[in-house]
């Protein structure tokens, strides 16, 4: 197991190098000047533009800029944000807790809603309960999160005045964003739980368990669900990545702190060092989560072993 984890960790190095190069050079293909990050919406003279370009090293050839970035990144320095004039690492660190809070809360929503709907639907296949649960799941997959988010805002902030529309601090500011983000993920989890559970419930060992007199709840939760959950765990891992991506939209709609909003601001402002840093960071998270998912298989299913 140790060797396996080590191998996987080593394999991330070329992935990260590839991602950083891809991001760096694709950013340069996008129209727009990183001077936008420095001057914002100001109108400046050509003379001043030239001075600023020279001062920030934006005149250097691309490969020089890239290797300067790599050299620093290896030492743990992701550079300074052109826009916010402070280290990229500080920017990420300041936004991370809010995004983690949001994704975890959304995951709780997704799992609670998704598993419940999936189990209910699987236990009563073909009934109105099943159709209702699956219709809800379909809605979750189909409605874009910005639409859901704006509607929640209209209902709960503007019409009812129950929840604050913007901001980060406090539980009441987490409810709508986490609900919005979790809703989409819940849908996928519900559908997968249903189909996986239906399949397991048809197997002989379930009949055996029932025959030896085990209670219904025990059979479903301990025997059936444990077997049905493996594909769900995979999808939960992938969903975690999707949640991070979804945070980009949800954090913007609700004006929450977070990595997603940081990335949007960085991209629109052509704040290249910040975009680089955030993308590299998110890539690391993806790789890390995938590794955790693979390891968790071994824990859930004793037949799976890594060497």
């Amino acid at each position: 197991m140790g060797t396996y984890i080590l191998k996987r960790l080593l394999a991330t190095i070329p992935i990260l190098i590839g991602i950083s190069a891809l991001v760096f050079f694709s950013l340069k293909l996008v129209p727009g000047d990183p001077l936008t990050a420095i001057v914002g919406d100001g109108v400046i003279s050509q003379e001043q533009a030239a001075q600023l370009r020279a001062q920030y090293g934006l005149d250097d050839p691309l490969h020089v800029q890239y290797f300067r970035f790599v050299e620093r990144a290896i030492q743990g320095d992701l550079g300074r944000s052109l826009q916010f004039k402070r280290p990229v690492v500080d920017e990420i660190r300041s936004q991370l807790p809010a995004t983690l809070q949001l994704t975890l809360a959304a995951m709780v929503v997704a799992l609670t809603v998704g598993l419940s709907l999936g189990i209910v639907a699987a236990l009563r296949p073909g009934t109105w309960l099943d159709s209702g649960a699956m219709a809800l799941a379909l809605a979750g997959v189909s409605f874009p999160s910005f639409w859901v988010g704006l509607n929640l805002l209209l209902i709960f902030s503007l019409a009812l005045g129950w929840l604050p529309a913007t901001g980060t601090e406090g539980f009441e500011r987490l409810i709508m964003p986490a609900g919005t983000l979790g809703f989409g993920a819940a849908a996928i989890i519900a559908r997968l739980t249903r189909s996986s559970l239906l399949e397991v419930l048809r197997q002989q060992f379930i009949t055996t368990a029932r025959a030896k007199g085990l209670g219904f709840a025990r059979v479903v939760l301990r025997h059936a669900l444990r077997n049905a959950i493996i594909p769900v765990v995979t999808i939960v891992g992938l969903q975690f990545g999707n949640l991070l991506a979804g945070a980009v939209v949800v954090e913007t709609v609700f004006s929450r702190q977070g990595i997603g909003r940081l990335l949007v601001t960085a991209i629109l402002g052509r704040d290249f060092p910040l975009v680089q840093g955030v993308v590299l960071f998110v890539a690391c998270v993806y790789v890390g989560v995938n590794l955790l998912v693979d390891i968790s298989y071994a824990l859930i299913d004793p037949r799976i072993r890594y060497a």
Partner: protein
Amino acid sequence: MSKRSRPNLISRRRFIKIGGTGAVAVLAASCVPATPAAPAAPTAAPAVKPTAAPAASGAGKPGGQIRYAMNNEPDSLDPAKTAQASAFNVMMNLYDTLIWQDPGDLQYKAGLAESWQSSADGLTHTFKLRKGVKFHDGTPFNAEAVKFNFDRYADPATKSPSSTAKLGPYAGTRVVDEFTAEVTLKTQYAAFYDSLAQTWLSMASPTAVKKFGDDFGRNPVGTGPMVFKEWVAKDRIVVVRNADYAWGPAFWNHTGPAYLEQITFVGISENGARLTAFESGELQVMETVPEGDFDRLKKSGKYQMVVARTPGSPMSIYMNTEKAPFNDINVRKAILHGLNRQELINAAFFGLYSAADTPIADNTLHHAKKGVGMYPYDMEKAKKLLDDAGWKAGPDGVRVKDGQKLVIDFVDLTTYEPKVVATQALLKPLGITVNVKVFDQATRVSMGHKGEGNMFSTALIDSDPGAIQLVFHSRNLGGFDWSRIKDADLDKLLDDQAKEPDAAKRAALLEQVVMKIMENAWVYPIYNFARLFGVSPKVKGFRTHPLGSYPYLYEVSLE
């Protein structure tokens, strides 16, 4: 960005002038010691209409706090490290400037400098400083602090996107005594006093700048009416009342500390979210209200809706003169006659803004009246101009010349789409097809710089009219000279006005500039730029700074 950047319906544009311009109109009365109350602008100046609301009468009630939403988070609160409107907004509360521009009469008034005097050649300026002023960290304000700040703003190593340019041909500061600072300039600089009254050149605590270094922008320390408390990135900036404050400009509605105990600034880029938060009562002030919603909120009668005009150059369409069809003056003239300005304002902006038809707005120094009304709306004349230019109506109604259709790419900001679409509709009867090409700020600015497109639009915010050189002088080709004008005569006029110390002569030169631009039909001015605010009815005393219309939150109180 904004910023954007940031979906903002009205993006703010500011104007940063390069140095090396000439003597200020202000110096016309050189050698005469200017007293705080003395008019600093020449009396010969054309009528300048103050746009700010009069100061609220009656004392406000101290106490309370407000939440104030901007459409983006500032990048830095170090005056030397930012060029953003949102930063200016917050910094105005944290810092003071040596002098202030009075929104009532647009004259320069005492701030941290009690009085000032200029030498006959306009190169030496002596400031007598106010005594007893302290920075928020306890550092005393004195001539050393003035020298420290100006030297820092002028230093290329500061890498400032705004302050260095604002300071112009700065040579140095001499500390005459503890409360007398003498600033020298290398050449005459028309916009010097104008610049000094702007937050980009405000006074920061030397102790704090040295202590925090690059992080000063996150730990700002000034002398202003509010003290920085905290900045939670991407969430809020909180400032609290400075209990010691006693050195505000005389034109403010009261003396002593600010009324409000605390102001929380938030950056909400999503228009829908900002509106929802405002309408649900979470915010007391909302900036950049989308025009359509402004109209709706105003009609609801529940809020104070403020249209705060900015000085400078109106929101205008710049026509790329390097490419067909706008390389032909007749086609440009056809646009000036054939595009109905008032209908454009009504269709795209709910008629909120006032029409403008010359490049220097009528609330700006040296606005040239002579240029007004040169191109009245005249569809028939526009059609004839196009016919004469060889663009004949084709079978589908679109004009054709040498097998080419009359098609125009209008490149603009995503949030300006209503303007582009309205232009498209209004030019269709002329037989002109307009392609709507909207992008984010960085992309469309870069396309403007490269001339990728036929029409571009921007407004310029500046209290000094000379700033229009940024969009008309050939040295800014490849920059914001989006009409791509390369005209030696215009360049010379622009250079001369910047150096002209005599106000009347400068006005005459600027009139020639305006006439030259309009005779050549290089630009289609649309409307006087303004910022739109939504203010809660509980907020009293809301009025704005003459430049860029930033509110004086010092004067604000709650009911």
